[in-house]
């Protein structure tokens, strides 16, 4: 199957579902920033606003038995994979009904039933784990694959080389998806990466490399689909560099002043995955403005419900925690 076949196989309904995913992630992140600023959410929070097309397009291209590995900016990956936003929100609140019972927080959502092997608080920390998940898929021999999401910052860590090399020599079904949002906290990838495109590093491992516009969910879906097919056929890993942009700072307390106004203006006006995909579906007459309105309202309600769920959830059992950790 070529890229074109993948695209024609995508129904109008699937495209509408993708739009729903983009909107839901965007609204979830906006709400989480709001709650962070009011003190309901503590610690660190890394919203993926501006990058939503990557999780949405990528997760659309895999099946129920496949795995994903996420990173610190991972709410979008989890939501796109079908995680329960009520349980994510409860975890952000540190409550007992959260995915981790309040022990993990924003950076440690995992759901084994959905194959979400975990976000990660260590930049690059999930990349070596993808090797093992890929090894499992190979040993199981059922054609399952692993999507491993990480950023441009992680691509400069040594684990990137160890993991891609090992996956390549063992021909593991892992799709490495580098979300190059141009900034590792404050360091621009043009300063931190020796070559122009991280995707070109694929030639070092003799594996397919794709360099794509990460603001377009269909492009992401297409490339990931090709890489997934390659992996399922036993041909090994691929590296996809999805060029994207983090619309805000590293976290809500970071105004992101290391970036020029012109640059921010360009990406937020020209490369907004939500706005652009809405426009595209309207232009292609796949959806009407009223229908989009309905989708947005439904997302708002879903998130409101999640916030109520999180607020009403009990605090973790402190006595139980102290009992489990009694000093001997």
């Amino acid at each position, binding site marked *: 199957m070529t890229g074109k076949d993948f695209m024609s196989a995508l129904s109008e309904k699937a495209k509408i579902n993708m739009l729903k995913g983009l909107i839901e992630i965007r609204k979830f992140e906006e709400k989480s920033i709001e709650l962070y600023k009011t003190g309901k959410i503590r610690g660190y929070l890394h919203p993926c606003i501006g990058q939503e097309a990557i999780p949405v397009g990528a997760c659309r291209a895999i099946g129920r038995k496949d795995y994903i590995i996420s990173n610190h900016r991972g709410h979008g990956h989890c939501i796109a994979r079908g995680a329960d936003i009520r349980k994510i929100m409860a975890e952000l609140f540190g409550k007992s009904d959260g995915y981790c019972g309040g022990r*993990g927080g924003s950076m440690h959502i995992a759901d084994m039933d959905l194959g979400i092997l975990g976000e990660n608080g260590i930049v690059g920390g999930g990349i070596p784990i993808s090797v*093992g998940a890929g090894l499992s898929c190979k040993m199981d021999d059922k054609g399952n694959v692993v999507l491993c999401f990480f950023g441009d910052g992680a691509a400069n860590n040594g684990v990137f080389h160890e993991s891609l090399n090992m996956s390549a020599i063992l021909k593991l079904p892992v799709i490495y998806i580098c979300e190059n949002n141009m900034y590792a906290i404050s360091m621009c990838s043009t300063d931190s990466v020796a070559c122009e495109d991280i995707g070109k590093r694929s030639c070092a491992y003799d594996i397919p490399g794709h360099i794509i516009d990460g603001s377009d969910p269909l492009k992401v879906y297409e490339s990931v689909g090709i890489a997934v097919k390659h992996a399922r056929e036993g041909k090994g890993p691929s590296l996809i560099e999805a060029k994207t942009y983090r619309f805000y700072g590293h976290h809500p307390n970071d105004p992101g002043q290391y970036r020029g106004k012109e640059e921010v203006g360009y990406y937020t006006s020209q490369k907004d995955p939500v706005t652009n995909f809405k426009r595209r579906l309207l232009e292609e007459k796949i959806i009407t403005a009223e229908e989009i309105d309905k989708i947005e309202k439904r997302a708002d309600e879903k998130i409101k419900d999640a916030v109520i769920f999180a607020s009403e959830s009990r605090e973790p059992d402190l006595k139980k925690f102290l009992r489990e950790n009694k000093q001997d």
Partner: protein
Amino acid sequence: MREIEYREAIREAVTEEMDRDREVFLIGEDIGVYQGAFKVYKGLLDKYGPGRVINTPISETAIIGAAIGAALTGYRPIAEIMFIDFAALAMDQIANQAAKIHFMSGGSIDVPLVIRTQGGVGKGLSAQHSQSLESWFYHIPGLKVAMPSTAYDAKGLLKTAVRDNGPVIFIEHKMIYPVKGPVPEKEYTIPFGKADIKRRGRDITILAYANMVLKSLEAAEEMEREGVDCEIIDPRTLVPLDIDAIIDSVKKTGRLLIVSEACRRGSVASDISARVTEKAFEYLKAPVKIVAGLNTPIAYNLALEQASIPQKADILEAVKSIIKK
């Protein structure tokens, strides 16, 4: 009972567990045709093939990551770090990933993973191949730490480690590999957190683990001739630690000497000393004493090397000084 080498006992544990459970596999550097740096995996590639004896490039982080990922998705890997010194290269995966996933997930996710490695002073391997780094792992909540001193313990503890649902750091000692000891042919396992009294005595408790058990046993023989009856207690696992057995022994003898090859500063020995002092101070007839490694990297030169870790003479001197009090 038949006697086999420590390394053979480890190999037996591995093969028995691989035969018992298809989910167990091996991953590490030079574990294929080379059979491991200490030949622990002799014959295993032929028996199980490259699908279950996975030989890797020199990529410690990716080895541990691969083991974690496989453990998360249904397997029970035994990953090998050739020398404990090289664990430094993989510490993120060990300390931040393997050790914390179960906790961070609210207890819903298990990481059934064994990291086999070996440490301690050998024969002139110098500063980067001779360390005793157990305190690194002892310090990190979420890891279990086993340090067997005999062939019997190595086999029984390793089988338990493989069946454990959490990450276990299994630290062998390079000087014990060729040492033979009785190992029954019938299957057995040894529970974690259960100390073993390697020698019964009434005058002084010597707490030792790994190669220091062997040195302490030699010292105890000599002290017996001088009329001092040493009890040697080997915790076998440092996490969980059988503190009750140590306290019981101290209550009986009233004296405690802790012998460890690791640098003393920030050591497991220091921690056990503090815990015993807190819990059984009123039973002590003399202050707890520690004989441990010097706070120095290990030198290449034989005399400097051996001076850096406890010798039989150091143990004898310490026992005598405690008994006098």
